[in-house]
């Protein structure tokens, strides 16, 4: 019998051809792999969130193998001596076991928590990038809304996860959440008793939050993230203005291989940073907080950073209680305003912002080019105002820790927060607006008169003037040089930034990297490295 010859080299091609024969995927796949992405460091911030979400899924799956979402009371008898013999819920006991008994459990728990904080932080930083560069404008309003929703769903994911270990901190957070729900007029008590299955804390809340945390919310997040990324594919990524870049094209790298390889590398870096933080920095030492008991509330009980602004707004809110004399009397507690009304307003304002801005500017065109923050001072200033508002609230959320560690009176911190909340945003608006105008003016100056050279010349009449290097060629009229148009991109402001192209390979840590030996393609001369520049000296040699 003759053995059939098996050609190993042809196998992948044959297999791919077989797949394409059956499913006809080659054409769409080629389109996908050839998709061009513009390259700028600020476009990678959203990826940090995406990659930390993947780390969250991986570590989270590991944790579910060992976590027991139950509030049954057990007596701890594990290896952490200071809690041995203490009655606690099975959820807390299994969290302790994950930390002390399960091999690699503690680093997984810490990585999960750090990845959650990083996920939210990256979402906020990415959102700021999108806001300040105007990337949310038509046609991308939908993606802006989905992004804002992702923040709030991530907020829920974080809060439910924070509550699961059932340690002292979780329980305190849940107690506050139940109080917030109770403060909602009319429906408050029904909402609370249906979520907790009766009075706080009940016996069901951990199991319910567990299902929400590991199934419902992640599913929602995956769905929203998929739509978010799908819309980026469909609508194409925005890009910075520059040579050859218009509102109608995308200049950048193909998805495959370069962009995909870079993204893969970046994923490894994000994973590595999370793993390092999980291994080096202790987060949420649940064994110190002890099991939750209603009468145990530790000082410095704070929510995670992305919820801290609500804690801050609660701390700053004066105790204004509204009594409505209907029937037996009806009360709207002061807690209602900072924890239900304020987030409601924030959700509304943030999701509607693209439409508000378009309406205000009467700008209903599609924009695929980004704007530098300085070129839109009003928007940049509004953003700075929002950041200032959020910062004051977040700092107020930690005001007891700040007061204690910096030896400031807690009452003074509260008043500073109240006053700061009112005056910091307008100050931020004004300062940012002026800064933007100043930067714009300097750009125009350089375009009109050239780059400052640092060379001072003394005129015959004794005046000193600085020599400017004009950016444009000489013209016949005026002062000899024509002003250049501003194109919405970086204006060179130093002599060594001049020239149409920068160095072939721009490194970050080492200023200029030498280009690698480029393969010589037929018909093209090999790429020559740029000749080294001569030193610029001021005339006479030094003696």
């Amino acid at each position: 019998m003759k053995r059939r010859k098996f050609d190993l080299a042809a196998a992948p091609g044959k297999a791919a051809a077989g797949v394409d024969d059956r499913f006809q995927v080659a054409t769409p796949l080629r389109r996908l792999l050839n998709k061009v992405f513009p390259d700028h460091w600020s476009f990678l911030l959203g990826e940090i969130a995406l990659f930390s979400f993947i780390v969250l899924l991986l570590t989270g799956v590991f944790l579910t193998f060992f976590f027991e979402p139950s509030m049954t009371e057990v007596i701890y008898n594990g290896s952490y001596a200071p809690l041995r013999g203490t009655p606690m819920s099975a959820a807390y006991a299994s969290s302790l076991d994950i930390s002390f008994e399960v091999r690699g459990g503690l680093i997984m728990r810490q990585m999960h928590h750090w990845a959650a904080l990083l996920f939210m932080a990256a979402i906020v930083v990415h959102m700021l990038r999108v806001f300040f560069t105007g990337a949310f404008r038509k046609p991308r309003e939908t993606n802006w809304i989905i992004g804002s929703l992702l923040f709030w769903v991530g907020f829920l994911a974080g809060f439910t996860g924070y509550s699961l270990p059932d340690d002292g901190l979780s329980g305190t957070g849940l107690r506050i959440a139940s109080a917030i729900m109770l403060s909602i007029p009319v429906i408050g008590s029904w909402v609370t008793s249906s979520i907790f299955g009766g009075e706080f804390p009940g016996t069901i809340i951990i199991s319910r939050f567990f299902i929400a945390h590991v199934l419902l919310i992640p599913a929602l997040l995956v769905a929203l993230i998929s739509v978010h990324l799908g819309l980026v594919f469909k609508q194409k990524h925005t890009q910075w203005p520059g040579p050859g870049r218009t509102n109608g094209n995308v200049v950048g790298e193909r998805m495959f291989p370069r962009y995909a390889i870079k993204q893969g590398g970046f994923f490894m870096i994000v994973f590595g940073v999370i793993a390092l933080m999980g291994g080096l920095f202790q987060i949420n030492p649940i064994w110190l907080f002890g099991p939750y008991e209603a009468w145990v509330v530790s000082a410095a009980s704070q929510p995670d950073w992305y919820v801290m602004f609500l804690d801050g707004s609660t701390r700053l809110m004066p105790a204004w209680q509204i009594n409505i004399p209907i029937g037996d009397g009806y009360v709207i507690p002061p807690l209602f305003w900072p924890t239900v009304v304020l987030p409601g307003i924030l959700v509304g304002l943030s999701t509607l912002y693209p439409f508000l801005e378009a309406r205000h500017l009467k700008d209903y065109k599609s924009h695929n080019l980004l704007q530098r923050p300085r070129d839109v001072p009003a928007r940049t200033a509004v953003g700075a105002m929002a950041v200032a508002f959020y910062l004051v609230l977040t700092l107020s959320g930690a005001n007891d820790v700040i007061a204690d560690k910096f030896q400031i009176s807690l009452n003074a911190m509260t008043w500073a927060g109240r006053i700061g909340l009112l005056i910091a945003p307008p100050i931020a608006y004004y300062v940012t607006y002026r800064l933007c105008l100043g930067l714009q003016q300097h750009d125009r100056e350089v375009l009109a008169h050239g780059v400052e050279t640092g060379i001072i010349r003394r005129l015959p009449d004794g005046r000193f003037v600085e020599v400017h290097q004009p950016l444009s060629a000489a013209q016949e009229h005026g002062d000899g040089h024509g002003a250049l148009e501003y194109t919405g991109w970086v204006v060179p402001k130093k002599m060594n930034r001049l020239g149409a192209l920068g160095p072939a390979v721009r490194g970050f840590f080492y200023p200029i990297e030498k280009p690698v030996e480029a393969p010589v393609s037929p018909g093209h001369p090999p790429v020559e490295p740029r000749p080294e520049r001569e030193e610029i000296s001021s005339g006479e040699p030094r003696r």
Partner: protein
Amino acid sequence: MTSENDRRRGLLARLRGRPAARSRGRRRLGAAVRLLAALTLAGGAYTVFAPGAQAQDNQTLSSAAADGKALFDVSCVTCHGRNAQGVEGRGPSLIGVGAASVEFQVSTGRMPLARQEAQAHRKPPLFTDEQTRQLAQYIQELGGGPELPNGENLHENGNVAAGGELFRINCSQCHAFGGGGGALSSGKFAPSLRPATDRQIYAAMLSGPQNMPVFGDNQLRPEQKADIIAYIQETLKHDQDPGGFNLGRYGPSTEGLAIFLVGIVALVFASLWIAGKS
């Protein structure tokens, strides 16, 4: 408790019941004899113990207390007044605060006070252990009050787990879950427990310095105090922080700071580096 009450009531009843049984004459005679005997005893005792030439306006002090009084009259009298009776608007009376309070305030350097403010800060102590003990002895003999047990190690038989539970219920509201301290209203604060010794923690519970409530032996029995001290000294201070650097154990606020200062900063630099590689 109840059996002791019964016995006491029985004794009183017996004392009240006895004179009624005797006749009136015998009772009068007995009273006169007792009065005479008491007067003789008092007079005799006075002649025996009364100092001859020198006149003293308070009770005699042991030698340690006398040394303590000498220190007091130099360093403390400005605010706490003569005989520790206190000075209006400057310092409280120390009658009845006990040796425990003196030992806490002086050995942690809080007293003598640097200046009048919301709350005294811990600082290097001005007096040696010996001098502190003398001061404490003086105040103790002056007005009585709570005292510390002897010895440096007051948590020898303490149960860490029981102490942890008591700590979380009674102490963590102000001193925080890690014993790092926390803020109170108007510039007052619960200090960090890290530098505190066994005796200082015990004295603080017993005397309730500044804004701290008193945890007398009725609220926390001595063995429960030993449990709490054991938890603070053995668990909180010597915990190895299995998760790595503990970020000061200030709770989620420093964790939030860390994710921005370490995580986001590192990854923004990474994205600058990666985007530069084109």
